[in-house]
């Protein structure tokens, strides 16, 4: 299989999730955007296509691009499956796609560095339904109010007290932050050790002192819940520290691994951007095909068609960058710059395409609930989260010269 064509397995993923996106996500996307509500019914329905909340732990790592079990000599498919799935789901609705993947953010570090006991505990915390009758979900809590692009200065601290760690601090921008039943929270255990001292902890929602904060009202991806989470002297048994309490020296199970994980998610984030861009482009193309402009077919106007040609070029270029980054990951090649390029280019493309689509549609796109207007709002976060466009360019630039430009 070459990197330019999907093999039957990837085609299958695209077809299955494309159908799920079309039949299940699209019909409720505008409702959840307008209400800024979680798509609980879809979280449940998604289990039928393998998107369970513990899918990553159960060995179905479709959305992460991470597979810690791979034979290092053999190419994998996880990253390519991840980007194909991400594009299809974001085509349906980026907010719902992020809601569906939110628990995976917590499951991924557990899958990578959790003990069997921690994995079992995670499954137990996510079994059954919560007090509202919803399926149980999880959250990963890393970002803090003062720690956005620069993740080395975490303020949340954990101190050892007997057999327990006591966690204190506030987290921000936490996907599923308010509704989660289980949290993987990152805290500094040895301030002197810097990044190496930052460790993850699995914490149950009902642990005293764990207080979900305000849910954010957002510009886009409004079906995905984003909230603050406060840890007010939350006591966690030492067995729930990721990597186990005995391996605290070295950074292999700490923040550095988290950073590696963020690197691994970038192609999938780029793929989501491609999915939104394709949605807006297809909407326009569909309009153009049947439309007339002052009595002549729209498709005969360069004024319109060259814009669509430009969009097509940019979307194709973004998708190729995404697939190259994923292909490299699957072939165990270092893809730091390529992953950043895929993410940054996808972000640029989706902003460009949705912006031009708004212009070409004109007044129509001002109507409440217009899908293109929603995609325009959804697009913006792709240049911000998981490393801003500036951070991606910094990473790429450092690969070019070895220096961090400021």
């Amino acid at each position, binding site marked *: 299989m070459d990197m330019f064509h999907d093999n039957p397995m990837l085609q299958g993923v695209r077809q299955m999730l494309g159908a799920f996106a079309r039949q299940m996500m699209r019909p409720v996307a505008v409702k959840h955007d307008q209400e800024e509500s979680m798509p609980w019914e879809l979280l449940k329905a998604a289990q039928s296509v393998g998107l369970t909340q513990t899918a990553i732990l159960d060995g179905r790592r479709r959305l992460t691009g991470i597979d810690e079990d791979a034979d290092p000599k053999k190419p994998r498919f996880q990253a390519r499956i991840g980007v194909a799935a991400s594009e299809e789901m974001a085509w349906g609705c980026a907010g719902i796609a992020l809601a569906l993947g939110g628990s995976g953010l917590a499951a991924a570090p557990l899958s990578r560095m959790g003990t069997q006991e921690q994995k079992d505990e995670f499954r137990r915390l996510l079994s059954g339904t919560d007090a509202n009758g919803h399926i149980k979900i999880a959250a990963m809590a890393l970002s803090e109010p003062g720690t956005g*692009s620069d993740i080395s200065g975490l303020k949340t601290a954990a101190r050892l007290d007997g057999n327990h760690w006591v966690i204190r601090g506030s987290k921000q921008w936490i996907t599923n932050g308010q509704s989660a039943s289980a949290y993987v929270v990152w805290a500094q255990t040895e301030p002197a050790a810097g990044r190496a001292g930052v460790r993850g902890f699995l914490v149950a929602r009902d642990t005293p002192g764990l207080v979900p904060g305000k849910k954010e009202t957002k510009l886009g991806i409004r079906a995905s819940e984003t909230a603050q989470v406060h840890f007010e002297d939350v006591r966690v048994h030492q067995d729930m520290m990721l990597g186990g309490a005995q391996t605290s020296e070295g950074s292999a199970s700490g923040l550095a691994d988290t950073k590696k994980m963020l690197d691994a998610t970038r192609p999938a984030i780029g793929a989501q951007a491609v999915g939104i861009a394709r949605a807006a482009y297809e909407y326009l193309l569909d309009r153009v095909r049947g439309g007339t402009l*002052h009595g002549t077919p729209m498709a005969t106007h360069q004024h319109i068609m060259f814009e669509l040609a430009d969009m097509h070029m940019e979307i194709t270029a973004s998708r190729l960058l995404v697939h190259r980054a994923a292909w490299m990951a699957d072939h165990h090649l270092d893809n730091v710059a390529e992953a950043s390029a895929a993410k940054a280019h996808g972000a640029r493309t989706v902003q460009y395409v949705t912006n031009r689509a708004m212009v070409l549609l*004109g007044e129509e*796109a001002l109507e409440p609930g217009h899908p293109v207007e929603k995609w325009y*709002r959804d697009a913006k*976060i792709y240049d911000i989260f998981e490393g801003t466009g500036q951070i991606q360019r910094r990473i790429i630039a450092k690969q070019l010269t070895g220096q961090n430009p400021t």
Partner: protein
Amino acid sequence: MDFGLDDEQQMIVQTIRRFADRDLRGWAPDADRAGAPPASLYKAGSELGFFLDAVPAAHGGALDGAYSHTARALRGFELGRGCAGMAALLETNVEPALAVATWGTAAAKQSLFDALARPGGGVAAFFHDSRGNLEIDDRGDLRVSGKLGPIPAFGQATHLLVAARDALFVMPALDGAGRKLITPSGWRAAQWGTATLDAHRVPAELVLARGADARAAITDVLSWARTSLAARAAGVASAAMEHATAYARERVQFGQPIGSFESLIRLRDDALTGASSARLMALYAAWALDTRAPDAADAASRARVHAGDVVARATVDAVQIFGGYGFVNDYPVEKLMRDARAFEALHGDERLGRVLAAKAEWANA
């Protein structure tokens, strides 16, 4: 050539700037969330001379002599800095009032101006059927069918000025005409509405112009509206960078204020160039309208197109500078990004119009 402001213009700028900074910016977050302005907007706006500034003094308004589009552009920029949605409400009466004063019959004047000048103030709105969606059957009286809108201020309006193919007319009493109130993502305070008409009757006395006269009149009305939109858009772009600059000074990442990173300096620098050029183009178009310069319509159209591009880009870049905080409603810039779109979408795409006109010219060359 003189780019300076005279005493009266300076006073307008200062007064409206104070109103925008203190009142509009103060009201904006709640008005945006509620999808409606505070009740105090109409009172405060009236006290500052809005709503009646284009209504002739003889009909209970404040207009004595020629209307100054330059003064309107100057205040529009300041209003845009305050809140685009409330700015749209404060400016909404100008096109209907000027059009009816210029081309209206005595009956049209009485109908509109009585409503606008009544105690408590009235509101009128303006719709340009840029896509040719309306069907108009002209038998002296008009029978109008089709979709109107989305139109800012239409939810509140007692009258609607409509510029359609070959007809400019005003319609009162819209409640019977299937009017629907809507709240789009942008200008949420602006009390938008749409309506679907089915052979809705507009009496002949409310038709302002038909045929070639209508096309000329509509060009004028659109030029007024586009100039005002351009000035307000430049104000929104400018406000976006005011907020972004203040934030970039405070926010420290990697041990330095983010404003000191060259990439963000460039974003701000380009946006400031954009806002500045957009404001100048709007003021030039206003001056051209006031002096009846031959290029007034062209200048207004180009000013609006440019300002639409500028405000879209500046507000997106302001969100970028705020990072994650830019994406949430606790900070002012995501609202500005939503507000930016109406500036280029309202009244149709002049770029397309120019392309088609030029193509027709080449075909005949």
